[in-house]
């Protein structure tokens, strides 16, 4: 009983909430990195001349603050591209603290972001040509949304960073501009009570910040509306792909070896190709075609795509030399494979609540399991040599 309790506790962060981002395990300790980031990374360290985009120092009441450029170098762009593939996450962290863009005065706005290199680069690039203060929180190299879900981008850290940087002596006003997706970790009223700074949630997307400022710091309806456009979905595919590689390789090996050992390596190779096709359908095609695939449940979308792919294979005539057993197996099992991977994509989407995903899994998983099992049995029957 006790252990059960502690397990449930583990899944909650210090705010008693679990995360909206794709991480099953919440870290209850703010000082430790949340699970979305590189494993067991250290914090961003101290600010020095090596911070990305450094162009000089600005003297303030509380000491010198790095001035940073809005220009992204080839290296910055390359590291962003690598991060999309899940490479280089360990070095995607920068020192938390106060930075400046342009030559801000004491009344210029303070924008808050995370110490994830990609978030920081997006912000400084979008705000080119403006004078403002950039307060970078220690999120251990994790983006705003994931870190907010864990409480790392949270009330504690924000209040601590305001104190550590002496922000109240640097600026005259008492207003902080935060990304809307950071709200999950922040209790705005508590921040104000503890630090004197009012929190205003500006926009969801960094791209909208220039318009937000030009609009007199007013959030339009569009700026607070979540989107999930093709390019946003596409950006998520590479890392999903990289993360499933191991699983794909293990299953492929098994699918090849069993028929090969039973004396039919050709059937093994065919099974591997079919499996990979179905899996990639779920991992790559479902995200891209998400709004157009029928059904609300992701598993239904995946199954429909899988079925369409098998049907295309069957009708194309490539399947001529395949046994009837293998054909039926393909129709039964492959849609389930696509459906499983499609279901996995729920973790990347910004609109699937936990209760909904749970409900879908309770219904879909047993069905998928049975379908795959039936497919495997059919395949094996087909492999038994006949006199």
């Amino acid at each position, binding site marked *: 009983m006790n252990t*059960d309790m502690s*397990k449930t506790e583990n*899944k909650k962060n210090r*705010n008693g*909430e*679990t*995360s*909206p*981002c*794709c*991480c*099953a*395990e919440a870290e209850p300790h703010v000082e430790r990195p949340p*699970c*979305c980031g590189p*494993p067991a990374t250290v914090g961003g360290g101290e600010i020095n001349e090596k911070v990305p985009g450094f162009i000089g120092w600005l003297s303030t009441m509380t000491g010198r603050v790095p001035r940073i450029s809005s220009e992204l170098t080839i290296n910055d762009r390359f590291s962003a591209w690598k991060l999309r593939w899940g490479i280089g996450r360990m070095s995607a962290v920068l020192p938390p603290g106060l930075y400046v863009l342009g030559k801000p005065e004491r009344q210029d706005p303070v924008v808050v972001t995370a110490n994830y290199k990609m978030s920081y680069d997006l912000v400084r690039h979008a705000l080119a040509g403006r004078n403002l203060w950039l307060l970078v929180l220690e999120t251990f190299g994790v983006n705003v949304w*994931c870190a907010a*879900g864990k409480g790392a981008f949270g009330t504690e850290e924000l209040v601590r960073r305001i104190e550590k940087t002496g922000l109240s002596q640097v600026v005259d006003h008492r207003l902080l501009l935060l990304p*809307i*997706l950071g*709200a*999950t*970790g*922040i*209790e*705005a*009223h508590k921040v104000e009570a503890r630090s004197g700074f009012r929190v205003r*949630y500006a926009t*969801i997307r960094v791209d909208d910040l220039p318009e937000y400022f030009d609009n007199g710091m007013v*959030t339009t*309806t569009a700026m*607070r*509306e*979540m*989107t*999930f456009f093709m390019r946003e979905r596409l950006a998520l595919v590479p890392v999903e792909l990289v*993360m499933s590689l191991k699983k794909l390789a293990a299953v492929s090996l098994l699918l090849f070896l069993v028929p090969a050992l039973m004396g039919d390596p050709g059937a093994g190779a065919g099974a591997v190709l079919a499996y990979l096709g179905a899996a990639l359908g779920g991992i790559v095609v479902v995200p891209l075609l*998400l*709004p157009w695939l029928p059904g*609300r*449940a*992701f598993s239904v979308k995946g199954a429909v795509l899988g079925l369409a792919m098998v049907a295309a294979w069957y009708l194309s005539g490539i399947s001529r030399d395949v046994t009837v057993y293998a054909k039926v197996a393909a129709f039964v099992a492959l849609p389930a494979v696509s459906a499983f991977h499609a*279901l*996995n994509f*729920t*973790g*990347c*989407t*910004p*609109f*699937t*609540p*936990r*209760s*909904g*995903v*749970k*409900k*879908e*899994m309770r219904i879909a998983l047993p069905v998928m399991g049975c379908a795959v099992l039936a497919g495997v049995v059919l395949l094996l029957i087909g492999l038994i040599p006949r006199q």
Partner: protein
Amino acid sequence: MKGFRYLENVATLRFTSDRCTGCGRCVEVCPHQVFEPAGEIVAVVDRDACMECGACRMNCPHDAIQVDAGVGCASGLLHEWLRERNLSSSNRSCCS
């Protein structure tokens, strides 16, 4: 959110209108426009759009909102279930 809808009648969002003062924070933070101003206070206008992120609950100064916020991630839930049944000791989550 335009163009995307997930399952209906699942969200755990509960709004206690007696406590609401109409400060508008929930309207400001919700990325799915679940709340809208309604006279002096606010109203839940699109419960099925809620993704249970918990932002409104966190930022409501008067405790007028309850929601079981959490991970809407199949792979994460699967690992959680396996661990609960002691079938997996892996500490891996889907975004590591």
